[in-house]
């Protein structure tokens, strides 16, 4: 009977109910999208790093997992590393930001092909001239590029030579010397990849290199890709917590407003229930259950919306941001939404529970 009363109350004010569910849904979507984009983008970076085919990664001192130092390494290192009989090939790249999440990667195509097995061209082909670039399928789709098209990046006009299958190192590639010159880094590299004859030697070699090259960020690829998670990216976890906090506050305010107006509007009904012998706990239980129903439906809506935002990212910015669906966070986000909503129901519920029956019955 109590559940029936709760549902009838929610049906009685459909617009308020829908708006509350929508607001909680947006709250849940915010959380799921942020977590999904964080994980998706990191996992995509890891996937592309693995696609290089290297066993060891060397980055300059001061680099972080996602960003590179402004003090790059000399390209003479490549010859130095290739002197080691365990190394099949060493390949270096220069990475330069294109704004936002996009980067341009300068590569030595010959070395890169030896290391990774080469690009699979979906259209066009390799570099023909110094101003040629290769783009991966997602960047091509996002920027609507085809072989032969020109695009201006870093105040420089480029010609698209080919569109390649995604999954290797970056999304936009040019020839290494061109990018070195454009960024005033002639003879320098942002990172170096080593491919070994026997990948089982990777850890031992990393340990040796760390001793020889103190301060340099040297990882096995397995170690590097496992570090590409939310906890290891500076401030990302804190950022997620802050957004979750904001989402909880939004849910709290919406539910507070909805329940507060509901309590005011139903003052007489609360008086009626009390005249029938309803205890303060009974009155509180009605609002708590209403809030719970709103939060659950809001959570379901938020989960559905997160598929919508994933689709939106795929359509609008397929190369810049990748959103994953993270089912384990469905439960967390629902719990967060329920908690925020319950906090919002505390004061209205308390006000309703302690409502004086006589005053409530005389409320017009």
């Amino acid at each position, binding site marked *: *009977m*109590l559940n*029936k*009363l709760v549902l*009838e*109350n929610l*049906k*009685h004010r459909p617009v308020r109910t829908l708006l509350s569910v929508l607001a909680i849904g947006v709250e849940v979507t915010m959380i799921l999208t942020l977590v999904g984009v964080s994980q998706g983008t990191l996992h995509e970076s890891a996937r592309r790093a693995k696609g290089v085919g290297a066993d060891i990664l060397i980055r300059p001192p001061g680099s972080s997992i996602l960003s590179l130092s402004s003090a790059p390494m000399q390209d003479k290192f490549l010859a130095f590393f290739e002197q080691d009989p365990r190394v099949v090939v060493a390949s270096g790249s220069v990475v330069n930001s294109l704004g936002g999440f996009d980067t341009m990667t300068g590569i030595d195509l010959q070395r890169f092909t030896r290391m990774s097995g080469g690009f699979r061209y979906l259209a066009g082909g390799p570099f023909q001239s110094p101003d040629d670039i290769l783009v991966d399928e997602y960047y091509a789709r996002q920027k609507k590029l085809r072989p032969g098209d020109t695009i201006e990046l870093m105040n420089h006009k480029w010609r698209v030579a080919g569109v390649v299958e995604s999954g290797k190192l970056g999304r936009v590639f040019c020839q290494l010397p061109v990018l070195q010159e454009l960024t005033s880094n002639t003879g320098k590299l942002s990172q170096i990849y080593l491919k070994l004859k026997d990948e089982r030697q990777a850890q031992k070699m990393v340990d040796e290199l760390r001793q020889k090259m103190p301060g340099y960020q040297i990882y096995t690829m397995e170690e590097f890709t496992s570090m590409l998670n939310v906890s290891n990216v500076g401030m990302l976890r804190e950022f997620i917590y802050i957004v979750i906090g904001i989402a909880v506050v939004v849910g709290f305010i919406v539910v507070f407003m909805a329940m507060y107006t509901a309590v005011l509007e139903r003052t*007489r*009904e609360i*008086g*009626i*229930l*009390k*005249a*029938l*012998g*309803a*205890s303060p706990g*009974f009155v509180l239980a009605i609002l708590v259950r209403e809030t719970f129903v709103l939060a659950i439906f809001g959570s379901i809506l938020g989960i559905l919306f997160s598929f919508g935002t994933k689709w939106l990212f795929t359509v609008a910015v397929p190369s810049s941001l990748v959103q994953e669906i993270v089912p384990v966070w469905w439960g967390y986000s629902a719990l967060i939404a329920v908690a925020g909503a319950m906090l919002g129901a505390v004061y209205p519920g308390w006000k309703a529970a302690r409502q004086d*029956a*006589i005053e409530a*019955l005389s409320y017009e």
Partner: protein
Amino acid sequence: MNSAPIIEVHDLRKIYHAGEVEVPALRGVNLTVEKGEFLSIVGPSGSGKSTLFHILGGLTPPTSGSVHLCGRDLLAMNDSERTELRKTTVGFVFQKYNLLPTLTAADNIAIARYIAKRDGEPDPKFHEILEMLGIAHRLRHKPRALSGGEQQRVAIARAIVNHPAILLADEPTGNLDTENSEIVLKLLRDLNERLGQTILMITHNPEAAAYAHRIVRMRDGRIVDH
């Protein structure tokens, strides 16, 4: 009539506080009601009728005096005991019907049983009462689809569904036309005569008051005429 009165009120006083000002609503009420009695309480506005009802119904505690309902001392009751009293001993009928607008007539009656923790359907006799009230065929409708008279009859059904010892009716015909007023008053009298329901009814209308066995007049917080 049984020998033990169902309501015994002695020197009942109730003082409300408006800021720092004390407002006496009842100034020493003495009243005895026998089981099965139908009593009308009449008096001008502000005479204390509603306050007396609210105290007898356990909606507000008295300030002093003694009030015994079915032998239980109201003055000694705390909030939760008065809540329990409203579930089991007293039924209310209000001038404005006071049905829950989101529920059907049947659910308005059912929720009173639910609150009183009486699971399941009412006893078969209650269906006869619904027939007698003339609302058995209107139970699936929500209050907005019912006439004022029908709503008040649903409110009466809700008030007696838990078989309260006392039915308190506060101006039950105040919002009704003459025809519906007559129907409701006859029903109250039938409930009293057929089921032995003790009824206390507040009214301004002398014709309505005449349906009761006894009329009590109140003025300035006191009973002035039995």
